[in-house]
């Protein structure tokens, strides 16, 4: 099954449009200029690669621009361009949307957060906060462009855009998507600008990837999206030839350090090799590497070592370049922009240069393309590496050059463990039904949590509270499954997909306040990496040694359900054997009184907090380990809108079944199939408290009830405004396996 790339859209600091961006990259233009978006006293540099003349008002509905971000605007423009080139529209064709990013509307909300936090009594719902959650970009793209079917927001820091494409590829190979538009977007903001400055990672002059005198990165902004389709579906609608094919991908985590890459590039080399293996290509088939190439001293030497380790003697031949010397580091967009450039490199037969590279660092001995080079490019590898050591490589190839890969057989997914940390403490795989038993409501606000009772606080000193709660939940889930990620005999890398609806709100607020009150030079380098939405799961992966796929998702009050469904999607097509999935939500006045009411709606009940981790595994792998799963996951789904008919495909309930939810109510617009309408409904919110991650507690409670033999099946349903997820957990193998998505 071939995955066709049939459309590309790019908004970059070099211009609006994929074509103009590529023209100017090949011409060697650099987009760096004086920062105009904001002014802060005492910045060490004001250099940035901005997308000029762009505002949210361009794409927002009339009069609603205050609730839209520049990131939204770049995304909408890039998605429209990609869809137009592919000749598809979400109103006429089932199209799925995946957006990778890190900042969303941070630029529009960071000042407001700092201002509101000065007086706790002044915290109130503000419409402008609609653009703060990571998921707002995808929501706004959907609002502006059309009714995308399945929608996800993913974050793995600077590899977010690449992982959005990877998830899209997984959906297509799973046969659940006929068309996916996937990519990434990130707008410049004060938080990332001062944060990278605090890390001394910024070159005050235009950067020099792979150069001996390189002194750091420059920040840029932008968005890029690719339309991916299975060949058959694309042909069926009349397309005869793609721009290129997405043929391989690899993803893994370093489990090493939150900001510094492994010096020897071991994991980067591993994911590059995995991408080649997935594509069934050898280094001799690749003609170009579009490098991550940030121009920081550590990244470039690590990446050079990884490329040499992966390519061996072919590294002398394969042309390597980085676009970051021209458009800077566009963070969550970078992996997508570079994927778009890789596709255009193949289509045009011309490799873009590394501008800024004058004297190659002896530690980076590669075949560098220092000028645009015409070449017959059969295949390109595009590398992306993020904070927390989240590494992803994608491989694109010219159409029909290589044999079509076979679609993998769909695999059954089981759940082997689950754990939560919440108002009732840390509960393991067989204990979470406590959240279904009658009892007092939790005390409002933060839960009791002494990190030292659960973690080696010396090793966990860099983990903020969200990172610690996440690590505790995943650690307990692993323990109950008798799984040690560091034990090489398990034969696979364990991964984790875990998100938070609003990210590190209080951390971001404190970081910004410090800048305003003390000055830019007192921005905290240690706090900054904890503000990216993938920080909790990244920290947990480092602490626990998780080296499989590691990233965050965000989807308001159904973030935990989104994580579990996404993990199931990946395992079903072989993109991971064991994945922990869930969410972490912290009690915070800013969430409770400002973001929550605006984004999630008014919450009824006591607000609490907590983290959940559901441990999913490929059934064949669990069997090989001799593990008896707690439950099968024969069916799962997600929807946008009211969810009318979304559950129609749910298999018949067995005798002792229940419908379980986090929040007390079932979605008002959801119609239960007749066979499920009489099944009892139970909610965990009265005991777990109300928060955006309550669905994770519902899943854990369902699993414990199944593990104890109290239930034969549970249909877990989660909903938030305009979206929902449902998944069926069964004690016995359902005849309807494998499930749909």
């Amino acid at each position, binding site marked *: 099954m071939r995955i066709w790339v049939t459309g590309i859209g790019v908004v970059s600091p070099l211009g609006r449009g994929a074509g103009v961006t590529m023209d100017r990259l090949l011409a060697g233009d650099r987009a760096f200029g004086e920062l105009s978006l904001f002014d802060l006293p005492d910045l060490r540099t004001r250099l940035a690669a901005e997308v000029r003349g762009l505002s949210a008002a361009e794409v927002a509905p009339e009069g609603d621009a205050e609730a839209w971000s520049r990131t939204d605007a770049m995304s909408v423009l890039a998605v429209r361009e990609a869809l137009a080139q592919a000749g598809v529209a979400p109103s006429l064709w089932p199209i799925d949307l995946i957006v990778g990013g890190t900042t969303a509307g941070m630029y529009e909300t960071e000042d407001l957060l700092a201002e509101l936090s000065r007086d706790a009594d002044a915290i109130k719902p503000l419409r402008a906060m609609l653009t703060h959650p990571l998921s707002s970009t995808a929501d706004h793209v959907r609002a502006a462009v059309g009714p995308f079917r399945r929608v996800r927001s993913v974050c793995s820091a600077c590899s977010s855009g690449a992982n959005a494409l990877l998830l899209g590829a997984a959906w297509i190979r799973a046969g659940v998507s006929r068309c996916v538009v996937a990519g990434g977007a990130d707008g410049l903001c004060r938080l990332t600008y001062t944060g990278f400055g*605090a*890390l*001394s990672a910024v070159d005050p002059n235009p950067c020099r990837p792979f150069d001996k005198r390189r002194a750091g990165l420059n920040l840029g902004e932008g968005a890029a999206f690719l339309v991916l389709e299975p060949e058959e579906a694309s042909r069926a609608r009349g397309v005869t030839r793609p721009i290129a094919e997405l043929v391989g991908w690899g993803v893994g985590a370093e489990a090493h*350090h*939150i*900001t*510094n890459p492994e010096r020897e590039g071991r994991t980067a080399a591993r994911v590059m090799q995995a991408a080649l293996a997935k594509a069934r290509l050898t280094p001799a088939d690749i003609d170009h590497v579009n490098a991550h190439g940030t121009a920081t001293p550590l990244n470039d030497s690590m990446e050079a070592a990884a490329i040499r380790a992966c390519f061996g003697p072919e590294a002398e031949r394969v042309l390597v370049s980085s676009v970051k010397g021209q458009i800077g580091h566009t963070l969550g967009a970078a992996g997508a922009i570079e994927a778009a450039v890789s596709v255009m490199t193949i289509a045009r037969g011309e490799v873009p240069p590394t501008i800024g590279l004058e004297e190659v660092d002896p530690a980076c001995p590669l075949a560098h393309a220092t000028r645009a080079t015409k070449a017959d490019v059969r295949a390109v590898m595009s590398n992306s590496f993020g904070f927390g050591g989240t590494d992803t490589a994608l491989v694109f190839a010219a159409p029909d050059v290589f044999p079509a890969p076979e679609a993998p057989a769909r695999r059954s997914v089981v759940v082997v463990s689950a754990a939560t940390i919440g108002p009732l403490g840390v509960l393991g795989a067989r204990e979470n039904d406590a959240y279904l038993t009658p009892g007092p409501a939790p005390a409002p606000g933060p839960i009791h949590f002494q*990190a*030292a009772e659960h973690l080696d*606080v*010396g090793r966990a*000193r*860099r983990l903020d509270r969200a990172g610690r709660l996440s690590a505790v939940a995943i650690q307990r889930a692993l323990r109950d499954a008798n799984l040690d990620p560091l034990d090489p005999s398990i034969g696979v890398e364990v991964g984790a997909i875990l998100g938070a609806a609003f990210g590190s709100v209080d951390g971001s607020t404190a970081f910004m306040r410090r800048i305003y009150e*003390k000055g830019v*030079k*007192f*921005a*905290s*380098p*240690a706090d900054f*990496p904890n503000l990216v939405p993938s920080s909790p799961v990244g920290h947990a992966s480092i602490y626990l040694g998780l080296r499989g796929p590691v990233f965050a998702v965000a989807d308001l009050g159904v973030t935990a359900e989104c994580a579990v469904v996404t993990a199931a999607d990946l395992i079903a097509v072989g993109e991971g054997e064991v994945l922990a999935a869930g969410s972490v939500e912290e009690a915070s006045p800013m969430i409770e009184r400002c973001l929550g009411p605006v984004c999630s709606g008014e919450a009824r009940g006591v607000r609490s907090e907590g983290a959940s981790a559901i441990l999913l595994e490929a059934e064949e792998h669990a069997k090989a380990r001799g593990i008896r799963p707690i439950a099968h996951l024969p069916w799962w789904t997600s929807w946008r809108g009211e969810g009318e008919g979304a559950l129609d495909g749910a298999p018949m309930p067995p005798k002792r079944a229940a419908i379980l939810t986090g929040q007390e109510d079932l979605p008002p617009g959801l119609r239960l199939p007749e066979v499920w309408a009489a099944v009892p409904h139970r909610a965990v919110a009265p005991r777990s408290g109300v928060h955006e991650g309550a669905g994770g507690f519902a899943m854990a409670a369902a699993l414990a009830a199944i593990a104890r033999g109290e239930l034969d099946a549970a249909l877990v349903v989660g909903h938030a405004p305009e979206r929902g997820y449902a998944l069926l957990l069964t004690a016995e193998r359902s005849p309807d396996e494998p499930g749909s998505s």
Partner: protein
Amino acid sequence: MDPADVRQRLKELMVTELNLEGKEPADIDDAAPLFGAGLGLDSLDALQLAMSVEEKFGVRVPEGDEAKSIFASVNALAEHIVRAKAAA
């Protein structure tokens, strides 16, 4: 500035700013290397420590090779602070 006082304040700063939970200022050996084998700190800690030293003592810690000798130990860092204060 009294060097012993600076060393004490510095160690208190390290415990809080670098989240050295479970450690007391008195546990930190004034002469031991801060990075690598000694306290096990790394480049991210160095950045955080440099920022907090400037905040609390009003003394800039230079970057690059110069920083290496200053960050050698609590003694060396305290000496840098005392010297910079005396010169100011």
